[in-house]
């Protein structure tokens, strides 16, 4: 059901929201989104990682390599204070869209 354009617009907000709940790595993020959307949103590595890297360049997230006990070494991402601010902006933007659309659809 998801379209590419919507994906592109929502991906930053979703990633920042997931990271606000705790540090995570690419595969886990994709799995989490799949889980929450009950399989409707399916990101590929090619779509996620470049976005992560751009967010890093923007200073919203930082990355570090970490190897938890009994697991493979992976690149983890964590949200930065700048990221928190960006998320807040995103949240307001999405809430506005949400309000507008809900009102419109209710009226229909």
């Amino acid at each position, binding site marked *: 059901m998801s379209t590419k354009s919507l994906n592109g617009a929502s991906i930053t907000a979703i990633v920042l929201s997931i990271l606000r709940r705790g540090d995570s*790595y*690419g*595969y886990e993020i994709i*799995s989490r989104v799949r889980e929450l959307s009950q399989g409707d949103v*399916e990101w*590929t*590595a*090619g*779509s996620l*990682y*470049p*976005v992560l*890297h*751009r967010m890093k*360049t923007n200073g919203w997230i930082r990355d570090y390599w970490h190897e938890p006990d009994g697991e*493979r*070494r*992976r*690149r983890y991402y964590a949200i930065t204070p700048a990221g928190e601010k960006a998320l807040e902006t995103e949240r307001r933007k999405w809430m506005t869209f949400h309000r507008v659309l809900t009102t419109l659809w209710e009226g229909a």
Partner: protein
Amino acid sequence: MADDAPRHFDSDSFDSNSFDSDSFEIEIALSTWRQFLSRDRAILPEDLDELESHLRDEYAAALAEGLPPRKAYEKARASTGNPGELHTAYRRVESEKRYSRHGMGREARYMSSLARSYVTSGARSLARSSAASIINIVGLSIAVACAVTVYLFLGVYWSLDAFHEKGERIFMVEHVVERNGRMETRGTVPEPLGPAMAVDMPQVLGAVRLDHAGTTVSNGNRSFQERLTYTDDGFFDLFTFPLATGSPDALTDPTAVYLSHETAQRLFGLHDDPVGEQLTLTFGPSDSREVIVAGVAEPFPANAGFDFSVLAGWAARTAAADQTAGGPTDGEWGVMVSGLFVEVADASEFATAALAGQLADYIPRQRGARDDYPIERFVLDNLRNPMPGAHKVLFRPTEAPHPILAGMFVLLAVLMMALSCFNYINISIGLALRRLREIGVRKVMGGTRGQLTAQFMVENLLLCFGALVLGVAGAWYALIPIFNNLFVLQIESGFFTEGTFWLFLVVLLLGTAVLSGAYPAWYVSSFRPVSILGGRTRLMGNAWLTKIFLYTQFFLAFVTILVVVLVAENGRFMRALDWGPEEASSVLYVSVPQSDMVTEVSQWITARSDVERMAGAVHHAGRSMPTTEIEIDGQVLLTLVYRVGRDYLSVMGLDETELTAGRVVVNETFMTSAGWTLGDGHRVALDSTTYEVASVIPDFHINPLSIHRPALFVLVDDPAAHTWLVARAGRDGAPAMLDDIEARWQQRWPATEFDGDVQARVFNPFLESYDNLSKSLGYLGALALLIAAMGLYGLSSQNISRRMKEVAIRKVLGASSGRTLLTVNSAWIRMVIVTGVAATLASLAMLTAGYSLAPEELLLMPITPRPFIIGYMTVLAAALLAMGAHARKVTSMNPALILQSA
């Protein structure tokens, strides 16, 4: 081939699935995928690591869902994104980043990413075939250890005496003389030549003579037999032997001596400064002198071709000559001294040739003094750059490198390198054949031939690097200590700081990598993907080169093993030889360097009730080598002249009659060499006295390697002159008596080492060090054989897996497993037989050639088939074991399954 690769889905150990269409290797797939992406400059190595980690997670999840591995991988790859998508996505971010701070040094990072990618997949591929990699690394490292040791040895050997700063201008004066119809060059010179040259010839800046004498040096109750070197005043000025303590200008003082670092330690212990201390030098029963230590030298460099342990001025020699009438005198042209070094102003070829010509002026003076020893001419021989044939000069005052010895060491190193490289090539090609599918995939995905070659060479370089590290460690911990144990010449530890050593290692690394990797790399990269993936590549089609390598390798392994067995057999042969008379086990000998020791030890021995007889001697058979030239009817006979006490021969069981004054006893070889027969009343001239030959005794062991050399015994009756005591104990009493004397010795002279044993064991130290050599060689041989067997194991296992279907058909048609195994391995069995015969013939040829070159008196082991049979059986057993290791696969296979899969 033994393979410890993680095989997730096939439990079968080696191969049958390597080439069938259902096999799938996740690691190969991953590294192929990774290498392909690594060519994309938009994706940095770190990103690639992240993507790979992601792919692995996807793959694990897909497997968990129950998908078969190939399907799981395909799904994982699809959800990770195909290379095109990834490229576009990353490219977009990259172009945004280009001008940001993260974009700096991107090109450099790309290059390092490429290199890292090669190294990563190289390391993975090595880990995948760890057993083969271990064989390769161990094999190469043995060769590297040999090469490193030989390099270091030659470094010392070819630079003998190079540390003397004036070396280029120092020449030894040697002379040519006719002996027994042959021209010989000898390093000795008439005594007055040096001073005469210094006075007569302006181009001679300095002349320093050397002469040696045996002496016993004592400090209180510490006594040692040492070689005393007399020299001229200019010694420390001419040679670079710096002093640790003391001043170098005391050589004019006849009571001054200089000690080497080692001698000073022995006489004075580690920490004392011995300068100014008094020592006693004992030359004979009535000749002992008090001297003062004037200095101690720094430890000598390892490449010192000559040095000294106790050094005294020429004045001391003159003083000694005045004391003992008939001893050495100064200024006589008839007296030869050990050596003469001159420093010349102009070392050019022209100037030295002129100087050598001028030396002819002295010849009449020498001939006038010695008409029995007329010198033909004098020659000059440079200290740093020995003249051609310098190793053949007799009595050369310093050692000259022997080209044959050096050549043998180089040959050994080259052989070992060749053996390991052959082996490496065989195993690599074997592995490559197993990686056909990977290679096919790489090629299909756009891997160029150059890329494949590069990949292979990087793997190879990694492996060679591992071998280099291991090899240097092996040389350091094993080979160099063994070498230093066996040889007088020592390899010192300082080489790690030398630039040339590191350069050598780099050259060795690159050389090994290219030698061992070039052919396999070319071979692998030449596969054609379509035929590989279609299963149509003929695996061993052009493997004739592989075959040649294997033949060569087995030939070398055979030769090595035969050499090992021959050396071990020779040890057995030497051990089985008796010292001589059977009384040897009841005779004991003790070294007594000082005359008061002689008296005391004699008293201990005679006090024992079980002693039968006792005698003293200046030289002891089995330990001393008192070589002397004796002239008989105009022929010079190099004879061992033992000066012994009255009862020496009877105690030793060599002759029952007592030795008397004016008479000598000779051995059989002396008689035959002189051309004499028994009972003719022959006479021998020795030290200007004529002796009558009293009796002839059978030949005995002169040293561990020779029996048949002329020997002569002459009486020295004065016990004070004796330095050895021999005693015959009653039945089986010798060991007990020896223990008793040794215990008393250690109480009486704790600082002087006890040197004595039962005569039957007189050669034991030699035999033990020989056994050590033989054992070290044995390890080397075992390793060579192991490497060759591993190579064979690998090739034969490939061979079997390739012919599984054929084997199945044979079994279906009713052939027994054993018979099938034989058929499949027939090519290798043929090879073992052919190389074995060739190696036997080659070794036999080498042995006979060696025997014909060996000096006549050397004791040689008779050539029997035994060592060859043992050697042949050993290699055959190893080869059969290597091939038989696959027996289970053939016996336990189910023909139906194999044929079905077709």
